[in-house]
């Protein structure tokens, strides 16, 4: 016991890490995490309504006010036109390519993260229903 404590102390000192433990976070931290998310979701709303994602000025929000009728809770699900189970970002990219006449975003493109954050934020509180049609 003593040995392991000493080892831990030694280890921490050796790499110069702060003395926080995994379960040590404050209300301020939680507020910051929430804010980080909200900022990204707000960025997503901006992209959603701006017409900047494609080439023809059409915005996602023209067909999906408040991101309605995107039902993120149903993904992944089978899309008969894609012939496979697809994720939400693939459908977002389908819309960017077609009605918006643009090109795909990478799944981890910060803009895609922002879009998915906004879409799911507008559906907060709705039960998960993966695969549902």
């Amino acid at each position: 016991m003593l040995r392991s404590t000493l080892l831990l102390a030694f280890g921490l000192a050796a790499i110069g890490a702060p003395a926080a433990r995994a379960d040590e976070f404050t209300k301020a931290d939680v507020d910051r995490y929430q804010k980080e998310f909200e900022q990204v979701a707000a960025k997503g709303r901006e992209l959603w309504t701006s017409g900047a994602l494609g080439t023809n000025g059409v915005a996602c929000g023209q067909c999906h006010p408040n991101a309605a009728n995107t039902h993120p809770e149903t993904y992944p699900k089978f899309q008969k036109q894609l012939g496979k189970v697809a994720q939400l970002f693939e459908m977002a990219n389908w819309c960017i390519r077609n009605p918006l006449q643009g090109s795909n975003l990478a799944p981890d493109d910060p803009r895609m993260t922002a879009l998915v954050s906004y879409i799911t934020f507008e559906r907060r509180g709705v039960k998960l229903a993966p695969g549902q049609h």
Partner: protein
Amino acid sequence: MSELITRRSVLAGAGAGAALTTLPISMVTLAFGGTREDFTFTYISDAHIQQIKGASFVRNWDMGLKRAVAEANLMKPESDFVIFGGDLGQLGKREELDHGAEMLSHLKGKLHAVMGEHDFYLDLGDYWSKLYGPHYYSFDHKGVHFVVLNSILTSEQWTFHRWPTAEQRMLEMAGLDNPNGSPFMVGDKQRKWLANDLAKVDKKTPLVVFSHSPLQKIYKGWNFWTDDAEEVQALLRPFDSVNVIYGHVHQIQYNQIGNISFNSVMATAWPWPYPQSYAQAESHLPVLTIPMNRADPFFERDATGWQLIDIGSGRVTARYQLWDNDSRTVAFDHKAGHPVDVAYQEPTQRRLPQNHF
């Protein structure tokens, strides 16, 4: 059930000896009393012609309007006149209104236009007026009194004092779900005009009122709403049969409030979700309305279309010409005293729904 044969189908039949192709349309012609005649008019709405730059426009929206115009011109027998229900352009630009007006100019028959918010908030309807005349007016046709209202006005403060530029004002109103928008209204001045206009009309004369926004309250967040709807309804109440037809919502809706029947019309551009699919707010879709199935984006023209409106016995039958769905007909049921979908109203007659979520 019968079918209207189009000119196109007649030509196809005569040319190749092929089987006649027809646009199937269920005919619900109701017995007409007195000296008035049954008639039909064409209703096209919400084209949202959108300029990209210069002479290029969003192809998808162009195709919707072109298709509606082409099909309306092929109908036989020809309808008596055409209504365009508003939102000809997307951002009210001259280029958009001109491009849309050019397409509409191919229509046979007299065109009456209704003002939409997308036509109005750039220059307050100035250029639109050069194309289509006054923002509100009335006319008579075969014993029916028709009224066209501009229902997309809003407060003086929002219209004149809120935004630094006309372009920004237009953009703020163009976002359906934009919290910086403002509720639509007909307004005092126009309601006074309406009261005067109706004072000259016999209460037994059937009324048909065209507005862009619903003259009833469904969901304020998307302006499926007119703020002074009740005041307008009060002016319509003394008449025996009143029909309100509106665009803006890009989906089938119908309702009955007292003596007033309400029918919405489709957009040629794109469909909108039913408001109940927005999980964060309450909305009030009329309980009478059997919603359309959820639109499938893989079909570019799904849940868009145009309509033929029959007037029989002073009541409306809306025959929705839906391009990627089976057509629907919503007709006034005289026994029930309200509009019904002639195929799907009974719960046992519904199809497997693609739910709205």
